[in-house]
């Protein structure tokens, strides 16, 4: 068996140091939880709550209990059972996860930025279903619905067009109940949702050290229905977090662990996938960078810390600052993808995102899915055994001979990864005669091919009808 490639950004002493300090901060300083009902729940469950300033401290024994209780494996269900996500993957591979919340996309046909519409969102999800490097689809924001219910419509369209597990976050406190109503209708019942949850939902910390009502409400509702959580900390090094990588890792760990403990106190054994995130502030302009090397290292360090200290699945994103899927995008994403995968990430998110504000790209979706496959092959490493060493063949081959007709070659000849977008014509002259297309142009061609075969999900009539009613009710009550 091959040894999976592994990267230790932190030494075991460093992991221990961060662990002790994380527990120290949570038990002595605590975090602010802006949700009266949650404060009561946490107080009753053993946290030290100050109701006046909403500050919650978690005693060390409570934290350690939570870390014993949280499951080490999480399964997200696909609607047809063919694309379930088992985290960690049994063979050590990573799953790709698409970018979340995007409102605009780079149109491959016109090369212009356009707002997502319901039909384009549907196409996006169908494209995700067709790409083998992608495990989970995150919700996208359609622009032709009421702004107040765009997350609700985003989830509905996801259920209508994608069989893969969904990654979700609520856009407002008011929409949380409708999102869970949609989940229940899709699953069929509370029991079915709990048994085979088809999505994960993300509460996000309000860095530093605070949690907003909407995010705590997500935790409460997810715990009520057994929907896996993927708590997200989004520190900005130098702005909302220390400028140094280690300081950001520590802050991120505190906030993620706080959400993990809260969930365990509300529902012991609740499935959690932590999320390592970091943006860095460009000290020259104040711009938040998503693709910096320091950010990549910070995320990799956080991933390793979560794995070594908490032993649970972890997500992280491979974003780039490039405004289009160009060479910068591929190099930043591949660097991050490889670092994250070697550090132990289970879900590599951000697939399909560009560096332009809230903008996705269908071609980037295809190129990034390609990248996930390359990363997966890379981290699987080198298998060394009697067969792969080919000692017998080596001893048997004369000087100047070849291996082309060997049985061993025949047996293994189809194992090498052949990333389709990288398989160029045999000569540069042929390539030029076919248009001399670069990677992006080849991605556009591939998009056009796949598009011809896209299909929506076939939902039972009553499920579709119920979902339509939920969305309509949400529009009437929340829309302006």
């Amino acid at each position, binding site marked *: 068996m091959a040894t999976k490639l592994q990267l230790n950004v932190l030494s075991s002493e460093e992991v221990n140091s961060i662990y002790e300090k994380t527990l120290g901060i949570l038990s002595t300083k605590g975090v602010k939880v802006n949700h009266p009902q949650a404060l009561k729940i946490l107080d009753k469950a053993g946290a030290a709550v100050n109701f006046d300033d909403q500050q919650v401290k978690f005693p060390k024994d409570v934290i350690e209990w939570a870390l014993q209780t949280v499951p080490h494996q999480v399964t997200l269900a696909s609607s047809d059972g063919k694309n379930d996500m088992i985290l960690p993957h049994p063979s050590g591979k990573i799953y790709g996860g698409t970018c979340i*919340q995007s*409102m*605009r996309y780079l149109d491959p046909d016109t090369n212009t*930025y356009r707002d997502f519409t319901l039909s384009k969102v549907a196409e996006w999800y169908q494209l995700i279903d067709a790409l083998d490097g992608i495990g989970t689809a995150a919700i996208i*924001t359609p622009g032709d619905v009421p*702004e*107040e219910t*765009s*997350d609700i419509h985003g989830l509905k369209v996801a259920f209508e067009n994608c069989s893969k597990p969904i990654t979700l976050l609520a*856009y*407002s406190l008011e929409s949380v109940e409708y999102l869970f109503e949609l989940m229940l209708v899709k699953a069929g019942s509370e029991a079915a949702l709990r048994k085979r949850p088809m999505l994960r939902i993300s509460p996000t910390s*309000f860095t530093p050290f605070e949690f*907003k009502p909407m995010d705590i409400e997500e935790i409460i509702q997810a715990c009520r229905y057994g929907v896996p959580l993927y708590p997200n900390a989004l520190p*900005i090094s*130098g*702005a*909302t977090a220390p400028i140094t990588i280690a300081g950001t890792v520590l802050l991120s760990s505190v906030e993620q662990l706080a959400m993990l403990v809260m969930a365990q106190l509300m529902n012991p054994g609740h499935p959690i996938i932590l999320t390592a995130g970091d943006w860095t*502030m*460009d*000290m*020259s*302009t*104040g*711009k*938040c960078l998503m693709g910096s090397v320091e950010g990549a290292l910070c995320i990799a360090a956080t991933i390793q810390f979560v794995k070594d200290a908490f032993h649970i699945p972890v997500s992280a994103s491979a974003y780039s600052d490039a405004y289009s899927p160009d060479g910068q995008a591929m190099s930043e994403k591949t660097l991050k993808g490889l670092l994250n995968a070697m550090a132990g990430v289970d879900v590599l998110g951000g697939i399909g995102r560009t560096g*332009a*504000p*809230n903008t996705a790209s269908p071609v980037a979706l295809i190129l990034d899915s390609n990248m996930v496959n390359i990363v997966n092959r890379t981290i699987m490493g080198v298998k060394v055994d009697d067969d792969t060493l080919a000692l017998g063949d080596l001893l048997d081959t004369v000087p100047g001979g070849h291996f082309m007709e060997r049985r061993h070659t025949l047996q293994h000849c189809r194992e090498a990864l052949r990333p389709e977008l990288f398989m160029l014509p045999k000569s540069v002259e042929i390539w030029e005669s076919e248009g001399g297309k670069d990677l992006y142009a080849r991605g556009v061609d591939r998009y056009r091919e796949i598009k011809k075969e896209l299909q929506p999900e076939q939902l039972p009539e009553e499920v579709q009808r119920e979902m339509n009613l939920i969305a309509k009710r949400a529009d009437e009550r929340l829309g302006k």
Partner: protein
Amino acid sequence: MAPYVELKENIILGEEDKVIEVVRTLLDAGNDPSEIMFEGLIRGMSEVGQKMKCGEMFIPEVLASAQAMRGGLELVKPLVVKEKLLDISMGKIVLGTVHGDLHGIGKNICSLMLQSEGFTVLDIGEDVPTEKFIEVAKQEQPDILGLSALMVNTMPVMKEVIEALERSGLRDKVRVMVGGAPISQAFADKIGADGYAPDAVAAIDKAKQLLSK
């Protein structure tokens, strides 16, 4: 070293104690307070601004310089005639994060940078009700109203503020700038904002550009 050169250099270095010491020495020597202010302190910050624009100085360094300058300014301001003080400010800006949005880090960095560049900034905080923007706009009569949003569902509130300004008859009296991670020029154009900046440094240039029109 010529006195104002020493003052300017210490502003660039962000040495607040040294700036205060030099200003005191200059005042004790009988130098004109308004000359110290304009030729030393403000000119020093202007050089900082130039260095920031060409990438030679970074934001934390600019903020340290601004802090150093303010240290000196506190000594001379009470001694400068009122009329001359009116020339200091580049313009008045009210900043706030729109209703429903608690995020403020980008706005706070913008506030610091705009102040360091000489703007008078009134930061009215986060989750600001639309009515409060209008109330403050009436009271303070700013040159620019800066709106910040970080979330997909709070971006539309920016348009509500602009519409509220129109209903109140204030729209042509104040320029509106918008910013935040999900905001783009296309969005700013769509909602009728006068300006958009992708980061704090760009916000300074845009503010100056809007006020020069």
